[in-house]
C-alpha cells in the first residue's frame, strides 16, 4: 500500500467520522417529535414552581415544610416509575414569566408549571392543557375558584389550571410590642388609609424611626396598596371590568389610588431604602423590628405567629376616607397548577395532578403552610391550627367587598408594567397620571 493510498483512506475515514458526527449532532438538535410517554414507563416529571408550593433552602434542598416536595415524595411511593423533579424559579414574577415563555416557544419547558391564577395563567393559555377532560366533572365540582383560571374568564372556557387553596389576601401587619413601646395603642386597627398614615406619624414622632417597613424594589407593595385602594371606589368587579373594557385604567379611581400611593415615600414614614429592598427580604426586615407596620401580599401566618405569637396584629389594607366601599379585601385564589401541551409526560403529569387534587393531599398543603384553606369543598377544616388563619377566615366571611386584584386579572405584560410603574411612582420617578396612561395603553395594545 502506497503512502498516497494510505492518506486517501485516512481522509475518507475522517470524512465518514465527520459526517457521522454531523448526523448524530443534527439528530440531537432536532425535536424528537416523540409521542407522549405512557404513565407506566420510567420517567422524570419536571415541575417549575414560582415559589408557591415548594420551599427550598439556599443550597437547593427542600425545606421540611415544603408541601410540593412532600407531596412528590408520597406520590413516588405509589408511582415507582415516576420521579418528580421540582425546579424553583425564584421570586421575580416578570422574569419567571419571560423564562417560561421562551422555554414554551422552544417547546422545552416543564411538564407542569405552578404560577399565579388569573392573568399569569391566562397569558399562557396556548401552552396549557385543558384540564376539564383530565380531571373530570366529579373532581372539578368539588373545587372553588375555577373561574380564575378559565380561558378569557369565560365560565365555559377551557380550564387552564387547577386552582389550589381557597385564597390569600393583601394584609397589613403590625407589631403590637413596638406600638406599645412608642406609647400607642397596641390593639389599634386603622379606620382608613389617612388614619393609618396618622398613626404612622405618631410613631415616627415618638421614636424618630420609620413607621412602615416597605420593600418595593419590584413594585409588589404598590400592587397590593393600589389595587386595594382603587377597589374602595370601584367595588368587587374593579379589575374584571377594566379587563373587559367597561372601565378604564386611566380613570379617576386608579389615578387617585396611584396618587395616594406615590405620596407615601414622601412622608418620610417608610424605611429610607424602601426602593432597594427586595420582596424576598421584606418579612425579615419586619421581623427584625425595623418598623411596626408592614404590608404583605399574602397571609404569612406561620412565620408571623412563630415569631410574634399574640403580639402580632393584622387587618386588610384600609380604604381612603370617603371611599364608596369601605370594607374591602383584595385577593383570592393565588396558586394555579397547569400541565403543558408540549409535555412528553402528560399522562404522568395528569396522574400527579389527580393526586394533588385529592382532598387529603390539599389538607396536607393547608396543614403545612397555614396560609389559606383548601379550595376543595371536602377539605378538612380541622387542619387549620394557626390562630391568625382562623381569625382571617372569620373576618373574610364578614367582609362585604372582595376584589380579585389587578395583578391577578390583567395579562402578564400589563402586570409587568404595573409593577414597574408602582416602583417608579413610589419613588417619584413617574407621575401617577403617566403611570395609569401607560397601563391603559399597554392593555389596549395587548387586547389589540
Amino acid at each position: 500500500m502506497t503512502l498516497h493510498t494510505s492518506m486517501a483512506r485516512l481522509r475518507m475515514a475522517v470524512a465518514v467520522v465527520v459526517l457521522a458526527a454531523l448526523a448524530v449532532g443534527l439528530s440531537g438538535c432536532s425535536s424528537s417529535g416523540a409521542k407522549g410517554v405512557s404513565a407506566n414507563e420510567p420517567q422524570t416529571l419536571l415541575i417549575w414552581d414560582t415559589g408557591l408550593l415548594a420551599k427550598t433552602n439556599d443550597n437547593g434542598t427542600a425545606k421540611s415544610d415544603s408541601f410540593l416536595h412532600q407531596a412528590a415524595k408520597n406520590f413516588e411511593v405509589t408511582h415507582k416509575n415516576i420521579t418528580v423533579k421540582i425546579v424553583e424559579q425564584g421570586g421575580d414574577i416578570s422574569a419567571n414569566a419571560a423564562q417560561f415563555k421562551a422555554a414554551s416557544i422552544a417547546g422545552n419547558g416543564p411538564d407542569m408549571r405552578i404560577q399565579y391564577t388569573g392573568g399569569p395563567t391566562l397569558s399562557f393559555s396556548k401552552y396549557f392543557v385543558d384540564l376539564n377532560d383530565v380531571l373530570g366533572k366529579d373532581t372539578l365540582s368539588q373545587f372553588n375558584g375555577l373561574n380564575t383560571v378559565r380561558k378569557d374568564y369565560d365560565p365555559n372556557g377551557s380550564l387552564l389550571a387547577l386552582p389550589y387553596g381557597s385564597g390569600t389576601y393583601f394584609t397589613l401587619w403590625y407589631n403590637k410590642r413596638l406600638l406599645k413601646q412608642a406609647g400607642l395603642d397596641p390593639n389599634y386597627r386603622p379606620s382608613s388609609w389617612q388614619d393609618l398614615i396618622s398613626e404612622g406619624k405618631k410613631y415616627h414622632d415618638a421614636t424618630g424611626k420609620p413607621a412602615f417597613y416597605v420593600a418595593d424594589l419590584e413594585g409588589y407593595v404598590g400592587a397590593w396598596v393600589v389595587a386595594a385602594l382603587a377597589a374602595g371606589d370601584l367595588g368587587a368587579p374593579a379589575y374584571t371590568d377594566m379587563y373587559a373594557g367597561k372601565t378604564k385604567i386611566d380613570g379617576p379611581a386608579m389615578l387617585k389610588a396611584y396618587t395616594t400611593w406615590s405620596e407615601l415615600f414622601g412622608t418620610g414614614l417608610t424605611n429610607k431604602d424602601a426602593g432597594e429592598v427586595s420582596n424576598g427580604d421584606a418579612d425579615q426586615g419586619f421581623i427584625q423590628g425595623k418598623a411596626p407596620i408592614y404590608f404583605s401580599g399574602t397571609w404569612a401566618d406561620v412565620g408571623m405567629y412563630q415569631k410574634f405569637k399574640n403580639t402580632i396584629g393584622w387587618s386588610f389594607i384600609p380604604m381612603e376616607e370617603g371611599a364608596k366601599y369601605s370594607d374591602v379585601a383584595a385577593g383570592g385564589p393565588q396558586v394555579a397548577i397547569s400541565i403543558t401541551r408540549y409535555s412528553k409526560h402528560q399522562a404522568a403529569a395528569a396522574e400527579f395532578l389527580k393526586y394533588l387534587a385529592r382532598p387529603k393531599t390539599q389538607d396536607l398543603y393547608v396543614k403545612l403552610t397555614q396560609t389559606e384553606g383548601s379550595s376543595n369543598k371536602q377539605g378538612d377544616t380541622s387542619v387549620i391550627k394557626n390562630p391568625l388563619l382562623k381569625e382571617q377566615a372569620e373576618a373574610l366571611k364578614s367582609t362585604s367587598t372582595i376584589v380579585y386584584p389587578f395583578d391577578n386579572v390583567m395579562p402578564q405584560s400589563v402586570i409587568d408594567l404595573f409593577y414597574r410603574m408602582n416602583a417608579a411612582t413610589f419613588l417619584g420617578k413617574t407621575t401617577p397620571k403617566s403611570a395609569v396612561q401607560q397601563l391603559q395603553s399597554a392593555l389596549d395594545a395587548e387586547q389589540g
Partner: protein
Amino acid sequence: MTSVGAASEVLSASDRRAGTSTRPSAPWRRRDRWIGLAAVAPAFVIVVGFMIYPVLYALFISFNKTDGVDFDWVGLKNYGNILTDPLVHQVFLNNIKFLVSVPLVIFFSIIVSVLLFEKIRGWKTFRIIFFLPNVLSIVVIGVMFKSIFGYYGAVNGIIAALGGTRVSFFTDGSLAIWVIVIALVWSGFGYQALLIMSGLSAIDTTVFEAAALDGAGWWRRLRWITLPNIRRELGFVFIINVLYTFTSLFGFIFVMTAGGPGYATTTVDYLVYLKAFGSENLGPGAALAVLLFIFIGLLTLLQNRVFRIQDND
C-alpha cells in the same frame, strides 16, 4: 512578495492552460472536494443554524404579530411603532449616557498597559490582579456592586462614617447609571489593557531608547511614540467598547436595576428583552433587535473608517 500559495495557484493555472497536470486525476479531485466539503460542513451547519437562521427568523418575526406560535403578517407596522415610541427614544438616550464608559475604559487601559509594559515593580502580580475581573461572571460583578453601593453597603458606610448622609444610588436613575458605568469600567479595563499591551509589544524598543537619549520624558514618549503606534489597537478597543455599550449591558442591568426605577436605566438590548418576552407579541421586540443590528453595523463601519484600522502606516 509572492506567497507560496499564490505561486502554486499560478502554477496550476498554467498547468491547466497547458493541458498538463501535476495534481491527482479527476476522481481524486472529486474525492478531495467531498472531503473538503465534509470538513467544513460542521462549521457551516453551526454558522447557518446558530447565526444566519436566527437572524433571518428574527427578521421574519419583526414583520409579524406573533406569540411564537401563530403568525399574523403586519408588514412594517412594528418598525413604525418602534421608531415613534417615546420609550424607545428615552432608552436610546440612556445608551448614549452609558457611552461615557468608553473613554474611561480606554484611559485606564492605556495607563495600566503602559505601566505593565514598562515592568513597574510587582508588574507580574498586578497583571494577574487587573485581569481577575474578567474571570468573574457579570452576575457576580453585578451583585457585588449592588451590595457595595447599596443603602447599607460599604460606600454608604464610608459616607456615613465621614458624617455624610447615605445615598440611595439605585433609586435615582442618574446615580444608578454611574454605578453601572463604574462596574463596567472595573470589569473591562483589564482585558482591554491586554489588547493594548499586544500593540505595545510590537513597537521597536530602540525607538524608545533613542527618544530617551534625546531627552524625551515619560509623558512625551507616551504622547509621540506610544499612542501613534497603537492607533489600530486603540481603534479596535474603542469599537468593541461602543459595541458592548449597545449590545451587552443586559446582564448588568438585569442584576443591578432591572432597568428601573421606571425605565431610567433600561438600555436598548434590555428593552428588546422586555418587548419580546414581557408582551404577548414578539414582533416589536424583534423589530427593535433588527434596528439595533443595523444601527450597530453602520456605527461600526463609521468607526472603522474614522480609525482607519485596515490602513497601513
